[in-house]
């Protein structure tokens, strides 16, 4: 429901042009919810077909989330062309390191359930969460180191995705430990987190874009004397 509002807001404010992958992600989630809700009301209820549809949906959703993260990186490369080269190195370097971590996690804590689909779904979900969470942390660290200014829309999207990815890492690990679908407490926790993330996205996408920092009052002259002398010296050369 909240996601449907978000889709509406994005269409209304034409944000799908700026963030097409994020728009695709929200639209897909709405569609997936509709489909799964329909299946749960049908005679299939929460049976094997529901689980199959859920797993396939999760797979698509995960792929689109990667595209959203890539979109956020590209957003920075477009705004700061000087970062295009180093930014790509950070992105690719992070992927390599995180893939290694995901592989180590997969080997050290293999899925123990007898259900193949369950094992595949949550083992992949856990590996993907490691990757997505790591990529978003790298992005935040990168922008912090270079003191880059975020457009508030991109910041909100990245923050929501990051929170969701880190919580997803914990919940997918718990799912694999429990070895079966349908633990009510974990389900509620995941849903609550996701709702929080959607609210974060709504907050940042609904409010107007923050203007870039601007100095209406230039700072007092006496603070800058040393700096000015240095500049004057350079100019007079």
């Amino acid at each position, binding site marked *: 429901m909240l996601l449907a509002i978000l889709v509406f807001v994005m269409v209304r404010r034409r944000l799908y042009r700026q963030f097409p992958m994020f728009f695709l992600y929200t639209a897909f989630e709405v569609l997936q919810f509709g489909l799964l809700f329909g299946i749960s009301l049908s005679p299939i209820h929460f049976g094997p077909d529901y689980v199959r549809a859920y797993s396939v949906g999760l797979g698509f959703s995960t792929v689109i989330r990667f595209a959203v993260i890539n979109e956020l990186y590209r957003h920075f490369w477009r705004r700061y062309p000087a970062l295009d080269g180093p930014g790509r190195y950070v992105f690719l370097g992070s992927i390599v390191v995180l893939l290694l971590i995901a592989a180590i996690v997969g080997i050290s804590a293999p899925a123990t359930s007898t259900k193949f689909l369950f094992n595949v779904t949550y083992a992949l979900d856990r590996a993907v969460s490691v990757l997505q969470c790591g990529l978003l942390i790298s992005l935040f660290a990168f922008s912090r180191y270079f*003191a880059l200014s975020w457009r508030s829309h991109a910041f909100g999207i990245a923050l929501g995705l990051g929170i969701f990815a880190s919580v997803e890492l914990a919940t997918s690990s718990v799912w694999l430990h429990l070895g079966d679908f349908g633990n009510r407490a974990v389900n509620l926790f995941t849903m609550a987190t996701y709702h929080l993330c959607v609210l974060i996205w709504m907050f940042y996408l609904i409010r107007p874009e923050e203007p870039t920092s601007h100095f209406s009052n230039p700072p007092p002259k006496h603070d800058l004397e040393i700096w000015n002398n*240095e500049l004057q010296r350079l100019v007079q050369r």
Partner: protein
Amino acid sequence: MTTTIILVLVSLLALVCLLWLAKGRTVSANVLQNPTEHMRAVDVEAFRNLVDPDEEEFLRTNLSPPEFRRIQRERLRAAVEYVSCAAQNAAILLRVADAGRRSSDPATAEAAEKLVDNAIRLRLYASLAIPRLYLGMILPGAHISPVRIAESYEQMTRLVVLLGCLQYPTRGISSAL
């Protein structure tokens, strides 16, 4: 069970890390309210002197090896301090220039764009130079010459002057910041 607990703790740590990094955005915004309080003067000539290979060679030939190592460590420690100051100034100037990029005046926007590029480059060089300087402290004999930092910093300060003159033609250089 243990692995699951470790992974849950790791995810918690990742969440805290993410929120801390995201909070840094607000801190930067606060710095921008009064940038001059956070800017530090950098004497480029003194820095050049500290990383000058000829100067290093002169010290090497005129001092005893233990004395040279001690002096060289001191010099490189000071150089690290200079690079850190330059990188911090670059971060602040980057945000200042960001505002100028949206100027309706094409000359101002262009100067701001160049300043953004230079500030980013300087921070890149700084991220490469600082580990090299620390390596130089561990191995005082190794040749370290992060002169590009000085060049980049000079170029950046010239652009600050240009941006200041374009944005505030009547107020002088201070107004650029």
